[in-house]
């Protein structure tokens, strides 16, 4: 950690770096660390007092929130697979970063190259859909395989030397959540949440009725691009815990589990809740049984999705039974409103 020693001659860039460090230290240690230490003291759960797990839980919460926020727009635009495509682009970005580090005497954080490549891929997918007239899933498939092809070539081009580093990104791991990574994910989460809060109305309009939004004079292409880039940011942020292959799950599964809810804003809230349960339970189980965090989180999320779907079925069946019995009691025909046919 950088020691916090200042003098009058300290250059502004160093000052900025120091203030960022101080902010990270304040949030991670003074606020988050102290809070979890306190909970650990009260409940006797030692796991919460370990700095390693404190970072993992912080990352879990961030992933749950931003995944559900952005995923709510993707799922209802039938763009669920864009997360997977951008994750594979991010993989290519990681490979580019590791390749540059291994080949040239430059130091680039793989995270930065991943973010850049995924953002470019996001805009590329959107342009293919908008201008090239390609089917959406076709353009997603082209960018997905193209990115993975670039990544695989770069990995092999360095005699397999970077393959070890790549493995952690492919499958995700709690061990990769360093202080710096946790701080970056927290920063990205603030940016994503703020962007969705500001652009909520145009995003929801475009999601619900793109032609209507266009007719109302909303710059649809701009918001499509914003959504694609936000997706890239979420994917890169969540990739380290979830792994490239599973990261799309957190954009899709909690949102799908929240679909029976009435009201879009409320559904986003429920999706965040489902995501929080899945990520915190997943991280805990992963730590206790020493199993992959990404896989555990996704399986918990799918279990919650299954419960959600089953409970809707049971509720409808009960409603029909009540309706039938009250109809029989009144000996009058009852007209079903066909409300659950969608």
């Amino acid at each position, binding site marked *: 950690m950088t020691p916090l020693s200042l003098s009058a001659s300290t250059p502004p860039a160093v000052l900025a770096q120091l203030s960022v460090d101080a902010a990270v230290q304040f949030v991670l240690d003074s606020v988050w660390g102290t809070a979890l230490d306190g909970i650990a003291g009260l409940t006797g759960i030692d796991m919460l007092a370990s700095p390693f797990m404190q970072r993992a839980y912080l990352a879990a919460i961030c992933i749950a929130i931003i995944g559900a926020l952005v995923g709510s727009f993707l799922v*209802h*635009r039938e763009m669920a697979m864009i997360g997977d495509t951008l994750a594979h682009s991010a993989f290519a970005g990681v490979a580019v970063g590791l390749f540059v580090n291994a080949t040239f005497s430059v130091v680039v954080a793989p995270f930065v190259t991943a973010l850049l490549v995924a953002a470019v891929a996001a805009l590329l997918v959107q342009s293919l859909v908008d201008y090239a007239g390609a089917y959406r899933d076709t353009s997603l498939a082209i960018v997905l395989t193209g990115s993975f092809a670039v990544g695989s070539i770069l990995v092999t081009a360095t005699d397999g030397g970077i393959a070890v580093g790549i493995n952690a990104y492919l499958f995700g791991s709690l061990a990769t959540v360093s202080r710096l990574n946790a701080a970056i994910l927290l920063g990205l989460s603030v940016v994503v949440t703020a962007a969705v809060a*500001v*652009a909520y*109305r*145009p995003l*929801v*309009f475009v*999601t*619900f*009725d793109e*032609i*209507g*939004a*266009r*007719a*109302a*004079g*909303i710059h649809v292409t701009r918001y499509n691009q914003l959504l694609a880039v936000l997706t890239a940011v979420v994917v890169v942020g969540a990739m380290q815990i979830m792994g490239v292959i599973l990261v799309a799950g957190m954009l899709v599964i909690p949102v799908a589990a*929240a*679909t*029976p*809810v*009435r*009201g*879009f*804003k*409320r*559904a986003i809230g429920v999706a965040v809740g489902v995501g929080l349960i899945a990520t915190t339970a997943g991280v805990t189980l992963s730590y206790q049984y020493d199993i992959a965090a990404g896989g555990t989180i996704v399986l918990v999320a799918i279990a919650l999705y299954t419960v959600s779907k089953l409970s809707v079925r049971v509720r409808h069946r009960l409603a029909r039974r009540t309706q039938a019995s009250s109809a029989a009691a009144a000996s009058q025909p009852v007209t079903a*409103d*066909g*409300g*659950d046919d*969608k």
Partner: protein
Amino acid sequence: MVLLDVDDVTFAYGDQPVIDGVSLAVESGAFLGLVGPNGSGKTTLLELIIGLRRPDSGTVRLFGDPTHESNHGERIGFVPQTVSDTNGAMPITVREAVRMGRYAHTLLGRFTDDDRAAIDAALQRVGITDIADRRIGRLSGGQRQRAFIARALASEADLLALDEPTVGVDAESREAFYDLLHALNEEGITIILIEHDIGIVTTHASEIACLNRELYFHGDPESFVETDALADAYGGGQSLIHHQH
């Protein structure tokens, strides 16, 4: 006052011409029924009118300005086809959908009292206040179309553009829906309606435009029934007789 002025407009998808030399002027307060066979370019013409597409040649002026260059989004209420163009599985309520009518006015930032009042008034005007908190995907076709009309009214639009709004809506709801359109037109809202049922158009519209790539007729419904425009546009007279019920 001329609200819409289409001047010698041509449009093609690639090398497939869809609209060929169409000129048409619509006065403010009119109820224009746009008819023509399948694939005749009706939807494309409507999209050109509300600025979703740019003509290959010619100009479309709406509210006095070329549509693809100006933004009159808050003055246009667009009602799409019932099922295909909107997202039925999205957990959005009627009120949330109607609120979108205000987005052209207040896209970012807090809603004002005026915004909220317009939303409540619109829900009430089309008679769906009691179902405002239901999911729009769970409504019947007729109720859903009312919600879209409410969205247009919430935006305080001068022009309602409707693309076959009652596909899949039962006959009774359809009749009530057109009565509502009629009433809104009497209150001064200009309506442009694409409708495949010629009988409905000739009953409710104040003028008819009959299209099949070119414009075959534009005038009042009485003259339309008397001319051969429909038969010419459809390439045979049978469907005309079939629809006149």
